[in-house]
């Protein structure tokens, strides 16, 4: 049963991009593609041949593979209620975060491998933003670790309890942060607009301009998986492990669904930031998680009121 979180995440990840697209389409009054369209796309890509730029080297070919693998392994850490993930150990979120960094690293150099100005730009933006969002995640995890006195995803989520107004506030802020970190990590609005056709303005999508076939299929699937990563964390964060299993599964899927629909809403009604504003905006995430940390210090009675 230890891999329950992993399996559920995989399942829900397949539908995520579709649901986001459908939400956005519905909100803007269009019919939109079906929920399964991204899956069909991926399947079609899997069958397709590839075209490689003569400028590229082995790096370009292996980057999507490593990227995909890094996300799948990161998903292996996903706990589920009282069940651990396949992999679970103390301070595993450090490994988790650095593993995702490996994926980003190879994608960045993979993009630079094509020698294209567009992809250089995308790679550069990705490098800058993912660098800035790192502290926010670590402070948040530090706060939760401090709150629960546990340091692995599994034990952290199992031991988290909310009982006072302050702790509810912290929970809200933490969820907000998780969602926003997910937006940055996935290069979505307001940081990036993946659905535009303008290669000059994008971050993640412009990095994969030259990818095709199997590689592109992996990249598409990875998008869903990355959402599932954060959706799963939020779900775990919310439901207590004391609930019966079936309720948990239902709630897990429900929270994931809500998360993705929320993303759809956010994307429909918000324009993306001016690029110059992004770093500052990401930095405020760190500031907010700092405030969370301070309030956790109050909860654990290290900072005495009065």
């Amino acid at each position: 049963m230890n891999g329950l979180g992993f399996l559920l995440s995989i399942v829900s990840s397949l539908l995520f991009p579709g649901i986001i697209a459908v939400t956005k389409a519905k909100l803007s009054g269009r019919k939109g593609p079906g929920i399964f369209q991204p899956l069909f796309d991926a399947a079609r890509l899997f069958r397709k041949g590839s075209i490689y730029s003569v400028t590229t080297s082995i790096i370009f070919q292996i980057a999507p593979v490593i990227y995909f693998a890094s996300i799948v392994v990161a998903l292996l850490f996903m706990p589920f209620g009282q069940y651990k993930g396949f992999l679970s150990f103390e301070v595993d979120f450090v490994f988790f975060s650095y593993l995702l960094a490996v994926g980003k690293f190879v994608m960045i150099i993979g993009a630079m491998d094509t020698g294209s100005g567009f992809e250089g730009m995308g790679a550069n933006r990705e490098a800058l933003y993912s660098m800035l969002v790192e502290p926010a995640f670590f402070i948040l995890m530090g706060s939760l670790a401090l709150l629960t006195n546990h340091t692995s995803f599994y034990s952290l989520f199992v031991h988290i309890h909310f009982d006072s107004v302050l702790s509810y506030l912290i929970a809200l802020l933490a969820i907000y942060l998780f969602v926003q970190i997910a937006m940055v990590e996935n290069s979505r609005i307001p940081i990036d607009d993946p659905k535009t056709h303008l290669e000059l303005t994008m971050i993640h999508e412009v990095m994969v301009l030259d990818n095709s076939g199997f590689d592109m299929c992996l990249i598409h699937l990875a998008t869903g998986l990355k959402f599932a990563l954060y959706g799963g964390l939020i779900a775990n964060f919310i439901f207590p492990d004391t609930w019966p299993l079936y309720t948990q599964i239902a709630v897990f899927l429900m929270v994931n669904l809500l998360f993705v629909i929320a993303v759809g809403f956010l994307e429909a009604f918000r324009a993306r930031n001016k690029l110059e504003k992004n770093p500052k905006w990401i930095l405020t995430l760190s500031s907010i998680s700092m405030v969370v940390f301070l309030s956790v210090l109050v909860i654990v009675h290290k900072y005495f009121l009065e």
Partner: protein
Amino acid sequence: MTTFSLLLLFELTLIILSFTERVKRFLTMLMIQGVLLFGIAYLQLQHINALYLAFILLETIIIKGLLVPLFLNQMRKRNNFNRLAHSKVSTFITVMAISAAIVFGFLLSSNIHDDNLQTKFFAASIATIITGIYFMIVHRNIFTHIIGYLIMENGVFLFSLAVGSEMPMLVNTAILLDIFVGVLVLGIFANRVGDTFKNMHVDDLAQLKH
């Protein structure tokens, strides 16, 4: 704990302020701060008599949260002044400075052990006052000065909560008067200057005297 939650929200407004560039959002944040201040004061001063409470209500919600922002909004509209002019210091630094101010407030208050001082208010007030002063130093625009001034005033309000739970009426009235004088004088002045207001710098104020 509840009071502290409200204080926390208050500090979040400071963070939002730190990277805001739209004047309208500044005013919204001021409104929210006013409401939060009322909540904080109410929780703290429940036991005092109704007159005081009414007074606090007037001061926080009505004046800080409603009248002043609306007045400023009128000014904003009249002058068509939507964005803060860029200051020399980048927003990046502002965000860091204000976060540092919040942490500094906590650090300072945790080191002070005084029975008469309520640390949580003290921490928040320090951060708020620093933020207010920061805005006044960094931006050279009158409008931002007014906002910085108001934020600082909110900090002083919190400080008055920190030093004693019974808020002396006199101090409060003084604060109120201060706000009025500050905002009205600067506001009327700014309105009179009118067209040049958008680019109006505090340095120019001195010249206008002559």
